[in-house]
């Protein structure tokens, strides 16, 4: 017996507009950020971007019980990125897989440069990112939310960290790939940056880009980051007032 699935709800037809969701090449998806959404965590943030729904929580600085991770002259910033089983079309088995282990690592690297870790020797700052719903670009959404959660926790930072992807889809270099564009597109370039100095704290790429396209995409992503950073600042302002 074979199972046929008809009328699937994934609309991947051949759209005639430049982008499936009618966005301009440099247009972000709808974005909403809220700080301070959880009670127990020291800091937290909720972010929606397109169909992505992401929660970030921060605990710390606090005592680090795993002695072999301890740093004598600074705090360790540890990250756990996790997808809820119901966040994707086919249920994801609970627990870390290779993808989430990698994303946790690069997220930690992306956030660390912005935090004054050296103020908290021998301790840990723990960042937990939960993807409640995924629609392309969850690693960037998680970093952007985590940075707001760090601020909400009152962790001293040099700058915010903000993340955004650019990429290539249907032959065009475009900003903030949706799930369909990510899956069917030619390249994906997620970056994170500190907006004040413009320094890049996360950089990954997969696909196929010429050197010129890479530069275009990089600059598009940098521009996207700057816009998103405005929303981060608003979220913090909404939480704490001017």
């Amino acid at each position, binding site marked *: *017996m*074979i*199972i*046929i*699935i*008809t*009328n*699937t*709800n994934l609309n991947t037809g051949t759209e005639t507009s430049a982008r499936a969701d009618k966005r301009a090449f440099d247009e972000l998806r709808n974005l909403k950020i809220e700080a301070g959404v*959880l*009670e*127990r*965590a020291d800091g*937290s943030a909720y972010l929606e971007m397109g*169909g992505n*729904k992401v*929660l970030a*929580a921060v*605990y710390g600085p*606090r005592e680090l019980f795993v002695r072999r991770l301890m740093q004598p002259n600074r705090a360790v910033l540890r990250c*756990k990125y*996790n997808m*809820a*089983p*119901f*966040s*994707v*079309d*086919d*249920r994801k088995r*609970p*627990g870390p897989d290779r993808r989430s282990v990698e994303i946790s690592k690069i997220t930690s690297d992306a956030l660390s440069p912005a935090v004054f870790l050296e103020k908290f020797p021998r301790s840990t700052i*723990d960042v*937990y990112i*939960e993807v*409640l*719903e*995924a*629609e392309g670009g969850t690693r960037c959404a998680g970093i952007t939310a985590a940075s707001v959660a760090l601020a909400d926790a009152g962790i001293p930072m040099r700058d915010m960290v903000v993340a955004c992807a650019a990429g290539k889809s249907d032959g065009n270099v475009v900003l903030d790939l949706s799930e369909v564009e990510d899956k069917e597109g030619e390249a994906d370039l997620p970056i994170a940056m500190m907006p004040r100095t413009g320094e890049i704290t996360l950089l990954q790429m997969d696909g196929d880009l010429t050197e010129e396209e890479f530069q275009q995409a990089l600059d598009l992503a940098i521009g996207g980051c700057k816009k998103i950073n405005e929303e981060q600042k608003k979220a913090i302002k909404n939480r704490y007032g001017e």
Partner: protein
Amino acid sequence: MVHIVPEIIKESVTNLVKNGERTDGRAFDEYREISLETGIIEKAEGSARVKIGKTQIVIGTKPQIGTPFGDTPNVGVLMTNTELLPMAAPNFESGPPDENSVELSRVTDRCIREGKVVDLEKLCIVEGEKVWMVFLDLHVIDYDGNLMDAAVLGSVAALMNTKIPTTKIENDEIVLDYENMMPLPINEKALMCTFAKIDGELIIDPSLEEEEIMGARLSIGMTEDGNICAMQKGGAQPLDREKILKVVSIAKMKTAELRTHLP
């Protein structure tokens, strides 16, 4: 990780209870504020966010087509999984489910299964071959006590919110019709009501502060007609027979009250 509660908090909470009071001003049989939203995750076939006080759980369902168990060839399958996320409390750790998480999963599952919330026989597609398997995943994101009542309330709401495609058999093939979605067949709205024993009293819907000093816990699952479908005692202090019988009566009223929060 063991969390040592300062003796002074223990004393103050206990003294309040002695005087018939609670730290947040509630009566012994009074729930905290409850909120319940459904349909919050579009990619989940059913979903809910439940809050009891500051406790918060996000729940999603994922129906899949699978093979029935050998001894129940015409019955669908419900799988309940709970994650006590490290974001929910400073002492929750990453890793495989610990005993508290396992107990929460199993008690929630038991209340829903024994309370016959879902009509699992209607989830059979081809007897002995294909049935719907419904994964019920609970994501505990904020922990301020009484996870069990929140877990069951939210799970029932998420199941009520769940839609699956209708199926037909054509030429020996199962055809899933996504244009004609149907709700999960819901039989019953069994809910759970939990009491904490503090200084000999059994008080409803314990907050975290109360859980940390309680001597025992009793959770009672009840169907709409007031029958008991599940019970679970926890904690290292005993309960006496009369107190148990008394809170069963209270649970009947309070689960009816909880039920008004369902859509």
